[in-house]
């Protein structure tokens, strides 16, 4: 299926606006949001747990509160946004731009190691690691 550039931009805009709308006006802490399947089934936190609540707070300008819910996600959000944005731009305009950070072995394994470490640490039930758990 070949979409025109105009349609692709429209589609992305609509998706982005609905995303912002939902996460701005509804608090994932107490609403119809889908819980993390990993946390729901095992009771442990995954490295992404707290992200929905963090996004809600970020959209309201509460960076510190968002940081409490998921520091890893908040800290790497610029990289994630840039990477996703570049991928979308390539798709929309048919370009082949690359984010060279994503081709660095140091970054790739460093980030993966950090995510696994974060995952383990935030499940430890004592100070200071329990600060990493996504609780208000």
């Amino acid at each position, binding site marked *: 299926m070949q979409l025109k550039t105009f349609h692709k931009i429209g589609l992305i805009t609509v998706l982005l606006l609905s995303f912002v709308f939902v996460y701005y006006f509804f608090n994932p802490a107490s609403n119809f949001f*889908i819980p993390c*399947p990993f946390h729901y089934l095992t009771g442990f936190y995954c*490295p*992404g747990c707290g992200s929905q609540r963090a996004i809600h707070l970020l959209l309201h300008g509460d960076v510190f509160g968002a940081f409490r819910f998921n520091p890893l996600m908040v800290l790497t959000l610029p990289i994630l946004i840039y*990477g996703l944005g570049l991928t979308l731009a390539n798709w929309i305009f048919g370009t082949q731009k690359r*984010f060279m950070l994503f081709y660095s072995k140091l970054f790739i394994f460093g980030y993966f190691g950090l*995510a696994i470490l974060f995952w383990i640490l935030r499940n430890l039930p004592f100070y200071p690691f329990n600060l990493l758990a996504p609780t208000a």
Partner: protein
Amino acid sequence: MEFSRIEPSGNPPENYLIFAILMTIFCCWPVGIFAILKATKVRELWAMGDEVGAQKAADDAKKLTIWGAVAAFVLIIIPVIILFSMGIFATLMDAA
């Protein structure tokens, strides 16, 4: 880069690392880790001048990304089904 002298001109193939990262954090790191390994291979093979191999690794990374998306969908569906059935159950109990 130490081996840039034999690196082909132009950009390396898309390695889909952004999706590998998102998979690893949010969903299914077992799939994510394979996608990450494939992503590093894209760069490695490209730097060695192996354009075909790099493209193949990139295609594999793309396949893993699709598998990750399928796994994510299934994982998300599980709590939804449980929550919905509990909701229906509660409604039935209330009616009884």
